């Protein structure tokens, strides 16, 4: 429990530091945004007025506090680029709102694919004494890690979309209209994210199991008269899974990153695509919130993995 509290404090500290970093990066370093909104032709009065409106003439600490309070209350600021109507800019919250589920579902489907395929594959790989399977999986793993994610996405599109016609590239179905169709369309982007991670996870689990198989306690188990089966599942697997949990935490962080690119490839209207287009147009309020959001998700996942790890490994839950 004490550990949990300690971790929680660290978590909050980290979030605070990240928010400060984001604030510095997007609101202090880039300088005055007024010119970028109004252009160079605006009158000094108009510029001054806007600065007043945006609160840019206040000291940085106060600006930071205001900003954090706003964000905590759900006011995420307004986009420089998108407008809701003639005189109002689009609030960032609204902009992100309907894009978020797309990204979350994409990540969830990817993670599910990874766990469902990689863990049995890793165990099978570790158990098999066949050199053929070993060689094939080795090559596939090596190759799949060398393919950049966007190219893999293109290959998946070409193979499953154009050659095999399992899905129609570019014909995205909104989750609000047809959820099943949406998931079906997501399957292929998710697969593009998952393939290299499946290879990595399976290989990691296999290596972890092979290492554990060399451990002294395995010999002890055999000396008791355990079958290979029993040694594998009764003793080795649990120990071998420990590092895999941490590894999966890292994988989740990478899925989040991978979705940024994959959304672009498959034309999914998620937050990744929004992030990239906002960067290209230097729409700082949007970029800032999205980066913060993704960072928070990653930190939180690490936090959960940390806690989970302590629950399953008796060696650490001491003291």
């Amino acid at each position, binding site marked *: 429990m004490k550990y949990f509290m300690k971790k929680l404090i660290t978590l909050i500290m980290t979030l605070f530091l990240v928010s400060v970093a984001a604030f510095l990066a997007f609101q202090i370093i880039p300088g005055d945004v007024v010119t970028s909104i109004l252009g160079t032709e605006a009158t000094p009065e108009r510029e001054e007025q806007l600065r007043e409106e945006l609160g840019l003439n206040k000291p940085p600490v106060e600006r930071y506090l205001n900003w954090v309070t706003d964000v905590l209350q759900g006011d995420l600021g307004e986009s420089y680029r998108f407008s809701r109507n003639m005189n109002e800019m689009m609030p960032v919250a609204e902009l992100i709102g309907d894009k978020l589920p797309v990204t979350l579902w994409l990540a969830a489907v990817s993670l599910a694919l990874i766990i469902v395929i990689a863990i049995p594959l890793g165990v099978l790989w570790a158990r098999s004494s066949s050199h053929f399977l070993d060689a094939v999986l080795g090559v596939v793993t090596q190759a799949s890690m060398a393919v950049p994610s966007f190219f893999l996405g293109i290959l998946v599109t070409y193979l499953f979309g154009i050659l095999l016609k399992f899905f129609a590239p570019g014909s995205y179905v909104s989750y609000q209209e047809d959820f099943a169709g949406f998931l079906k369309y997501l399957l292929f982007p998710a697969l593009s994210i998952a393939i290299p991670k499946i290879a990595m996870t399976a290989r990691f689990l296999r290596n972890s199991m092979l290492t554990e198989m060399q451990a002294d306690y395995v010999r002890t188990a055999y000396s008791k008269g355990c079958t290979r089966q029993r040694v594998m599942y009764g003793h080795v697997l649990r120990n071998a899974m420990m590092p895999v949990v941490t590894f999966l935490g890292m994988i989740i962080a990478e899925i989040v990153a991978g979705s940024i690119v994959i959304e672009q490839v498959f034309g999914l209207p998620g937050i990744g695509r929004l992030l990239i287009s906002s960067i290209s147009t230097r729409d700082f309020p949007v970029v800032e919130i999205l980066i913060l959001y993704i960072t928070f998700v990653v930190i939180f996942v690490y936090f959960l993995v940390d806690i989970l790890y302590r629950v399953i490994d*008796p060696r650490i839950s001491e003291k």
Partner: protein
Amino acid sequence: MIRIEDLSVAFEDTEAVKHVSLELIDGEVLGVVGESGSGKSVTALTLMGLVADSAQITSGRVLFDDVVLREAGKPCDKALYRKYQGARMSMVFQEPMTSLNPTQRVGKQVEEMLRLHTDLRGEEMKRKVLEAFRSVGLREVEKVYSCYPHQLSGGMRQRVMIAMAVILHPRLIVADEPTTALDVTIQNQIIGLLREINQKQNNAMLFITHDLNLARRLCNRIAVMKDGEVVELGETEDIFQNPGEAYTKRLIEAVPSRMKRRRNIAAVRGMGEPAGSGLAGKLPTGRESEAEAGAGQERCAELERCTGQERCAELERCTGQERCAELERCTGQDGRNPILQVRNLSVYYRDGNNSLFSRREKQCVVSGADFELYSGESLGLVGESGCGKTSLSKAILGINKEVEGEITHTTLRPQMIFQDPYSSLNPSKTIGWLLMEPLRARAALDKAYAMTREDMEAAAYDMLHKVGMEDKYFHRKPSQLSGGQRQRVSIGQALITRPGMIVADEPVSALDVTIQAQIMELMQKLQQEMHLSYLFISHDINVVYQMCDRIMVMKEGRIIECGETEAIFHNPREKYTKLLLGNS
């Protein structure tokens, strides 16, 4: 009855075990003794059916009550073996920490034995396990039952392992170095326990060890193995009294013992004495040499050799017996000339890692150490692991700065010889480079010591010869040397700047017995040649006995006893010292 007949085991091309035949009857303890690589563990693993699949049985067979368990040319019948493993034959391993599954409660692990071989289930099973725990001397058995291995001490873990091995009353117990990883006092308890179990359950026991002394205390018969072969087999006492093989003799001699020490010291000092003279036995402690001073001219000549050339002039001025007395004072052998003085020293250790969030706690690991090291003597520091002996040595060398008290030494830079010969030499450098580096470092610190490259090389070659190695090793890298050779280089590296004082931290513990003897001999030879003082740290009281003039015994950070070697061995004052000695 268990029989191994003409067994040979090969890994790829190398034969690890060659034509070994052993026989075990109920109630008997057979010791298999040999150095690492002698094939003793492979024999045991083959007997247990645990040897790796890559091992091939090239001849012979393994019989258990006339049932053939393993035969040459046939693969291991694992299903058959499983009926025997655990139920009729079981094994106790060396490392109790890693031999237990770290993520399963130890109770469950012992229960697995019952689950596999009996019909007992649930509460019955647990009762039986608790009973077994009690029988191996564990207390608070309920608590132990639900512990994970890391929550138990080394001794307790080994008791759990033994409980697991004996719970089904197997006919055969194979114990592979079961006490090597444990401290001396625990070692004694475990040996006692094994003997007790053997008497109670009347099982046959195969006891594998590298330690002849240990085998002597437990075994009825002993088989000595070397390079995969059994070179000698017989009743324990017969082997000790009349070793038939030269190798066995060497092994027995290599075990550091009192006899050995006398002979060594006599060999080094006794050039002037008639061989086998009764005096040799009295010599070991410095004090007795006083009486011997009267022995006359020869003695002086010897001393002269020890003290080196500077003294020649002085020597010439003196004559006769007074000269000897004076010399003795100069050399410090008896003149009590401390090269190192430690006064009321306490050493602290900062707990935990350096972090912003956690405060580091200061722990006292050595308290109130008070002693001196005299020029030319060997001072032994004995204690079990964690008693603070390494911390003390680090403090003396200035590695550990968290100290209170006073350390004064007259040498410029005392050097150290480490335990592990594999990590004490920089793997990316050649031996020559390594031997010259201390000279370069000294020159960089003090211009007075500047040397030309040729001089350094000459000095390095000279040192290479001194530690008994040939020229050709000069350009080799450490990875191309054996453990013993590396330790020689290590010694050479420490001595090349002639530091006068050497701290040797378990310098022979990582080596095989025969190599151990060679290294100790080398250290004694160099001590005489270069007039060195050793602070000799070891957990092995026998090694210390052989090497040292005086001994300090350390326990829980305190020096509890200090005195002349002979005195400590014959009249230990402290109970703890007696306990340590109990092993030898």
